[in-house]
């Protein structure tokens, strides 16, 4: 006999577990299925454990390189790499348990096992040996199976020498040298982490800039910063192949038609992710797939099968936990028949947690121009901020892009200390359709880094006081 539910959710990451809780809140009898711990990549192998590692790096960097600036003497400074990894793992475990608690609290049924679509209303549950243990029947099925690191033939991941982000956050020993292929947020964060602890790091990026989706000015600033700290960076560079030779990886790169070989003890492949779509029974039930992700209607998240929905990384870019959660809530509320606004994909913040941090929302300068806006740009360097001065974080700037016609904040780009926290104000401003006046006339506490946001807005209109 099948167990019957209103809503069955396959995958317990930030898309799936949020959908499950929201569904339960709205009175649906809900089940969430995941083969692993709840929390998905984000909590277990992504956002959270890497933030733990980054914090170690920041502390170490301050103690090693800046203690003197603060008049602090540090002697015999050292670290235990395995303890650093252990702390990160422990945090991931703890936070996954708190998701378990939330799931229980909301009376969502939790099923552990592999789930596979059997029909448009049925999911079969299989154990690790591939034996079917249960059939779940549901009116609505939500696929939230996430994504995995993309693997391409020239870079054959063996998880020992050529690794993905998952191995990179749980290495038993610190590598002497590391080549990071792909300078998106994941690549850049690991590059920062390992470089800070003394690994010789080389970044290779195919596009013209590191963090290529960010505003060019921000990317260039970060690149200069990384280079100054001793990292080697190759942009506009293609990786021909990576091969393991005598316990080290040889990477052949090509830049401007010239080939070159680089060697390192490990290679991190961070070239992107692709949706987890295999083994789900999509073909059997006839769920449409398009270029590696499940095809949905981006208003309702319905697939071509009316009882089956999909959210999060498995439906494609922008592969962000907060987007998956937003889609989860919208999807469930629409199923409930509530009239809710659609997710606005133009207003999603993105954060990279290296130092200096990078955060942005909305259009880059280049994109705004491409879209035909006449723009006004306001910039405020942290070197003019009293708070940044006091904390010794004078690098970076806030750059705001306004539509000259109506004063709309089109985009915000921040590089510097706490950029990832500062972006929230711009997010609120953009989603509430605030104008430059709204930001300039909002009193910002002094002394804070957030004053830089206000000053940047004022700067765009020639009213900045402190530059």
């Amino acid at each position, binding site marked *: 006999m099948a167990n019957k539910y209103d809503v069955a959710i396959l995958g317990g990451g930030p898309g799936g577990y949020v959908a499950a809780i929201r569904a339960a809140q709205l009175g649906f009898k809900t089940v969430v299925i995941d083969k692993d711990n709840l929390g998905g990549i984000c909590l277990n192998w992504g956002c959270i454990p890497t933030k733990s590692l980054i914090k170690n790096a920041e502390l170490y960097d301050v103690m090693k390189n800046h203690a003197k600036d603060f008049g602090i003497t540090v002697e015999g400074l050292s670290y235990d790499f395995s303890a650093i990894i252990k702390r990160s793992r422990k945090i991931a475990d703890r936070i996954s348990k708190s998701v378990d608690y939330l799931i229980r609290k909301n009376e969502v049924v939790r099923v552990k096992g592999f789930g596979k679509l059997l029909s448009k209303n049925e999911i079969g549950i299989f154990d690790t040996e591939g034996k079917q243990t249960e059939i779940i029947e549901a009116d609505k099925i939500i696929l939230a199976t996430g994504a995995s690191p993309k693997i391409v033939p020239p870079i054959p991941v063996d998880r020992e020498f050529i690794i993905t982000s998952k191995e990179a956050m749980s290495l038993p020993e610190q590598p002497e040298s590391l080549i990071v292929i792909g300078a998106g947020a994941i690549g850049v964060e690991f590059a920062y982490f390992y470089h800070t602890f003394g690994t010789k790091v080389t970044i290779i990026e195919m596009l013209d800039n590191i963090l290529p989706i960010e505003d060019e000015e921000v990317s*260039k*600033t970060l690149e*200069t910063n990384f280079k100054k700290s001793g990292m080697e960076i190759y942009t506009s560079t293609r990786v021909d192949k990576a091969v393991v030779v005598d316990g080290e990886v040889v990477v052949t790169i090509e830049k401007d038609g010239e080939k070159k070989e680089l060697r390192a003890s490990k290679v991190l492949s961070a070239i992107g992710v692709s949706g987890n779509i295999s083994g789900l029974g999509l073909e059997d039930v006839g769920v449409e797939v398009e270029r590696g992700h499940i095809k949905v209607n981006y208003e309702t998240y319905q697939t071509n099968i009316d009882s089956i929905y999909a959210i999060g990384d498995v439906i494609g870019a922008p592969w962000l936990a907060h987007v998956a959660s937003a889609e989860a809530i919208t999807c469930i509320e629409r199923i409930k028949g509530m*009239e809710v*606004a659609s997710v606005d994909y133009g207003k999603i913040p993105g954060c990279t947690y290296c130092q200096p941090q990078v955060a942005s929302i909305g259009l880059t300068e280049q994109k705004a121009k491409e879209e035909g806006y006449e723009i006004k740009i306001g*910039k405020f*360097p942290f*070197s003019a901020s*009293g708070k940044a001065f006091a904390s010794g974080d004078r690098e970076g*700037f806030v750059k705001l892009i306004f539509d000259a*016609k*109506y*004063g*709309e904040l089109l985009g915000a780009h921040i590089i510097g200390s706490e950029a990832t926290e500062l972006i929230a104000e711009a997010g609120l401003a953009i*989603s*509430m*359709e*605030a*104008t430059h*006046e*709204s930001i300039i*006339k909002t009193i910002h506490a*002094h002394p804070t880094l957030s004053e830089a946001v206000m000053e940047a807005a004022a700067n765009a209109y*020639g*009213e900045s*006081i*402190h*530059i």
Partner: protein
Amino acid sequence: MRVEVIMPKMGESIHEGTLIKWHKKKGDKVSKDEIIFEIATDKVDTEIPSSVDGILAEIKVFENETVDIDTVVAIIETDSESAEPAPKKEVVKDPAEDLQTTTKVGGNLIDVVMPKMGESVMEGTIIKWHKSVGDKVERDEILFEIATDKVDTEVPAISAGTLVEIFVKENETVDVETVVGRISSEGGLVKGKESEIRSQKSEEEILETTAKETVLGENSILPADKAGVKSETEKQSHPIGESNRFYSPLVLNIARKEGISFDELESLSGTGVGGRVSKRDILAYLKDRKSGKVFEQKATKVEVEKGTAQKDGVEIIPMDNIRKRIMQHMLNSRDTSVHVTAITEVEMTIIDKFLKEKKKKFMEEDGVKLTFLSFIARATVKALREYPMMNASLEGENILLKKFVNLGIAVAIEPNGLIVPNIKNADEINTKGLSRAIADLGFRARNKKLLPDEISGGTFSITNYGVFGSLFGTPIINQPEVGILGVGAVVKKPVVVTIDDVDSIAIKPMMYLSLSHDHRLVDGLLGGKFLKYVKDYLENFDTSKV
């Protein structure tokens, strides 16, 4: 002109530069290509020449300071007249300026208002301020003198303290109760409207604020900048209407810049969070409006919003926006005007005969469909010219006499709409032209193609319920007008005619006209005269001048 001198970009990877030496001082003349400063970057050191002739008006970056590229390091004034490098400090020390930029404050703020000097006095002119900003005043000490149309008098201070602000200057006239100045009860100086908030702060906080501004405010605000800020604020402070709905600053900005009226904004449906009107909604509306689809959108909206419910055999239908607006307008009119209606009967023989003979000819030759209504419209504008009080409106206790006639024509729109577009300068148009204008407005109103301008600014209206066969009615005035003419059906009736003192009964085309007028302004005398004028004009219509 003020030219900004920036920290140049000295290479692809260079993001900042250090200004190592200024070759010129503030106020110095500089020529084009003359070296003005030297910079050092991590790649190169170089000398920077001026790009223009002028005077170095401002130095923003000092020697040994490092700034990002593109940062403004100096300002060169190219216009030598205004370039006289007005020393900033002097500007700040200008007494008036000084007071307005000071932020220190203490005590309570008391508004000083234009007093009401009598029942019918609505405004007053300040003829002299006895105190200036910053002066101490005693309670009951004369503060200023005013002149009104009834009396001139001196106004004493209602509280002791310091006069901290003057809003209304000498020789300016303002409504009574307008705040003309402010007194701070315990002394101190304040700045603009911040005063109210700041006065709540403790002395220490204020000191800290002041200190902060001193520390970080390396550059004083130039008067020009400040004026800029101020005008922005003023613009902000003019809400375009009162509403229970929230509009984002961006939506309001778009409405303001694109001339979307508050009523139009209120009629939009929103797709944003909580049904809020978003940028997308208003831009879509704008697009529709430009392509003349505006009213169509409203019509479809009615369908969307309908959503009916059944309860005990009674169907509950939420009103659509058009219905709500009509309801509000009618209630508003009833509550505003004192309606009285006078009725007269008009013999339409001349016009009826003319129409029978010439209607076809006009249609064929000019493409104009002549109707009774166009003759009535013609008679009405003539009457409005004769009795301009009927072409007026009221604002408080003022009569606004319009020197132009914008004649409103009520148009019913199936199934559930009513709109009153008006013919601009109808007094400059002959009967044929009026006929054409009425047909055009009616057609476009029914096809939702009216422009916003055409439904505002009317001065008097005509409503033609005669087309439905009604004989007479008591129309509701279209605010803010003071009169509306109701046109009944033209029907053949037996009437008594007197020829050579002999009464007999004849059959004539007859029509009732009813005039509703606002008794606040128009009494029965004027109403009667106006109606009589229209009647006489129609009964003796000079059809040679159609």
